[in-house]
């Protein structure tokens, strides 16, 4: 009887792995994907500039140029006849239909060591590239005059940045 029990135990030990073996392993195929899209590129329109025009300062004030290029003045600042103002312009290229944000900094215009500060405002804070992958925007600004600036032609720069959303 002892032998019988021992033998049945052995039989079980052999039988168990025999059942499991065929289903012991399995393989599946996974997929991996990545999509490279065009980078966003900002180009300053050749010849364009944020132009605050020609004016007298009086005891100071501001010159405001809208992003459409329309000029206006405050306080004692006065445009001289035939003064013209212009908005700056940029073009953007990149991935079709992708939205992006626009950021512009302020800056200073200077001449002979005198700085006149300005702020800028883009025509939009964000926009979407067309199906052709292009877009554009304009930039206006506000120049703040103390009234003490010497006559002269002042120039300066600022930075515009576009970023994919």
């Amino acid at each position, binding site marked *: 009887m002892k*032998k019988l029990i021992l033998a049945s135990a052995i039989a*079980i030990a052999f039988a168990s792995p025999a059942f*499991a073996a065929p289903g012991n392993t399995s*393989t599946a195929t996974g*997929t991996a*994907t*990545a999509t*490279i899209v065009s980078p966003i590129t900002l180009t300053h329109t050749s010849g364009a500039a944020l132009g605050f025009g020609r004016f007298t300062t009086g005891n100071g004030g501001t010159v405001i140029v809208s992003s459409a290029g329309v000029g206006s003045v405050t306080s004692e600042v006065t445009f001289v006849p035939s003064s013209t103002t212009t908005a700056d312009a940029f073009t953007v290229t990149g991935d079709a239909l*992708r939205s992006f944000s626009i950021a512009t900094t302020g800056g200073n215009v200077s001449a002979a060591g005198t700085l006149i500060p300005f702020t800028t405002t883009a025509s939009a804070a964000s926009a979407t590239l067309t199906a052709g992958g292009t877009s554009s925007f304009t930039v206006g600004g506000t120049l703040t005059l103390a009234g003490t600036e010497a006559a002269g032609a002042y120039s300066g720069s600022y930075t515009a940045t576009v970023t994919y959303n």
Partner: protein
Amino acid sequence: MTNLPFRALIAALLAMFVLAPGMASAAPGNRSSKAGAAQAMVVQPIRIVAVNPLRFGQIARPNTAGTIIMSPLGVITATGGLLPSTAIVQTIARGPGSFNITGDPSRLFRLTLPAGNITLRSGTRTIRMSAMRSNWVSGASRLSTAGTFALSVGATLNIGANQANGTYTGTYAATVVYQ
């Protein structure tokens, strides 16, 4: 002298007779029957099924080469020129590759992912995928008490400078085996 395996075999055959249902009606007196115990575990086969692709998402073409690492938890990190390239809105959510594994509850299993490079292709252009990793832990990952395991797979994508636009795809094998 009969050798032991042979005797064991004979005994096993006898055991089968003893356990045969017909023996229950054996005549009393000259024979004695007693129920033996027999056990066999039929184990659920292990099975792995792919669920979601490993999605690195949309990447703005970088000026310089770099890598994007997708962790098995789905966290993206970027190096080199890819740093700003990955911070763009995704039209389809990024994520790790996922698989469902089913089989014998609580059983240990081993996972094998490609150790080398996998090539993702867009036409003739390629991106190399390497360092595949997952949430499986050697010697520790078991099927749950319900007999399931949710496998997540990440990898490193090695993108070249000015990598051409396009959707790159590739495949990899994930193999599981009982331990």
